[in-house]
């Protein structure tokens, strides 16, 4: 029992060390890690919200500007969680300092938890920053703080896991930008950030339902505004399922040493 207790203390210290290191990393280079998303979304607010939005009128009963806020916040969360883990973990492979962790007695799940929490932390920081910017442009009343926060955290965790898996398989710095550019960004844009899928023809509505991003954007919109194209329970279930699957897969990759051990 005593040994167990001290094991857990040791794991906690390791987790804390990785998380702190990750937070320090993105804070130290905040101009590259935090600022870009804030600037981009501010531009979205100005252009789509203010300039064009006034002409669009309402969507699902909300001013267009209000309608796109949840999607834009979540987009910041997604891109930044993913980017943080993929670039940090890949760098540690590239410069070999991942070996510092591999030779240490840190269990794989602690390593994974540390990196994923680091990515989630950056996602949440950016999400909060974008939200604050949004509040300069709109007067949103948060519908359900709990749902908002939960979805935000779960999405951040999920995409941190995605970034981790991407980093494991990556063999060059090019490999870490392929998925964000060719998969993540299109799926986010098509995930109903800028429109309600109710506007789409039947067929494309069905296709949209295959996009996991749609569930997150809508659940998050429900949290903030109280409207969603998707039943909220389904959205939670989907995200949870993805988290479980990707966690199991990441641990499996670590156990087999894929991409990190020869």
């Amino acid at each position, binding site marked *: 029992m005593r040994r167990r207790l001290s094991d857990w*203390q*040791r*794991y906690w*210290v*390791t987790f*804390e*060390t*990785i998380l702190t*290191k990750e937070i320090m990393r993105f804070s*130290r280079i905040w101009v590259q890690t935090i600022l870009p998303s804030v600037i981009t979304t501010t531009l979205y607010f100005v252009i789509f919200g203010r300039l064009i939005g006034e002409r669009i009128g309402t969507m699902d009963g909300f001013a267009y500007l209000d309608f796109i806020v949840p999607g834009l916040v979540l987009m910041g969360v997604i891109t930044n969680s993913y980017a943080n883990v993929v670039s940090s973990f890949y*760098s*540690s492979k590239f*410069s*070999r*300092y*991942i*070996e*510092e*962790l*591999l*030779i*240490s*007695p*840190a*269990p794989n799940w602690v390593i994974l938890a540390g990196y994923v929490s680091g990515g989630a932390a950056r996602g949440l920081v950016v999400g909060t920053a974008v939200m604050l910017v949004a509040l300069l442009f709109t007067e949103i009343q948060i519908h359900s703080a709990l749902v908002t926060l939960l979805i935000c955290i779960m999405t951040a965790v999920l995409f941190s896991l995605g970034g981790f898996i991407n980093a494991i398989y990556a063999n060059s710095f090019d490999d870490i930008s392929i998925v964000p550019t060719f998969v993540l960004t299109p799926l986010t844009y098509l995930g109903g950030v800028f429109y309600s899928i109710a506007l789409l023809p039947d067929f494309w509505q069905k296709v949209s339902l295959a996009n996991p991003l749609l569930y997150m954007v809508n659940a998050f919109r429900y949290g903030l505004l109280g409207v969603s194209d998707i039943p909220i329970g389904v959205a939670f279930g989907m995200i949870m399922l993805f988290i479980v699957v990707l966690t199991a897969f990441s641990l499996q990759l670590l156990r087999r*040493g894929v991409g990190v*051990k*020869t």
Partner: protein
Amino acid sequence: MFALDVQQLAKVYKGGFQALKGVDLQVDEGDFFALLGPNGAGKSTFIGIVSSLVRKTSGRVQVFGQDLDEDPEGVKSSIGLVPQEFNFNLFLPVLEVVLNQAGYYGIPRREAKVRAERSLRQLDLWDRRGTEMRKLSGGLKRRLMIARALVHEPRLLILDEPTAGVDIEIRRSMWSFLRELNAKGTTIILTTHYLEEAESLCRNIAIISEGAIAERTSVAKLLGQLRTETFVLNLKGSVSELPELGGFVLQHLDDCTLEVEMKRDHTINGLFEALSRNGIEVISLRNKQNRLERLFLELVDQRAANLEGRA
């Protein structure tokens, strides 16, 4: 107890290359042990498996009685590793590198700070604690790898070619540091392809060549053997009983052939006098190169090649 007990260790890399071919090796607790071998012999592969950086294909590894497969955390906690190649986050300051490593081993921050300071002071790096890694010279980076490896006070320190590319002065100070550490009880294993390094530091030695242990002995014995020359003598007539030749070690190959080992202080004249006294006539003699000598010629050749490459 053995600090390291390795049985039938084999490694086949992806692509099919067999880097280790069933290595058996035991290192006593408290030993200062050299793993000597030419480039490509499998030293780093061996060390990599023991320190969990490389996955073994088969075989068993035990460190202070703990099995790598059954208790990897226990094994990892007992080992400090100084790898062959730099593996730093170049954007971190020196102190943080050591603190992080301590954290990975589960040492709480406050304790980690005390230990990091001690480690860095031991290796004369405390004044550089704020310097970013990328601004450190190669020699200082090598020393920092040692400081980092010691922060969790491992019982077994493994160094993979620790003095490669380090100038004489730093090399000497590293040597005396390692000697002191070993005297205080840390078991040390180092790989090298300099015999001088093994000679000056280590008590026991294994020579590895093409993925297999070619020799496992004490450094003193090895040097003795290297300083011995073996001659094969063809005799006129046969000798059934080996004569007593003060100091020379004789061996029968067959009735008409003898093998004699000569130490450095022996002379050929002395040998022939002794043989004549015993009525043995020699028709011809040839120098026999032993296996060890061949191995060492290989090492020497390689060093020459390395030096040329650097010039």
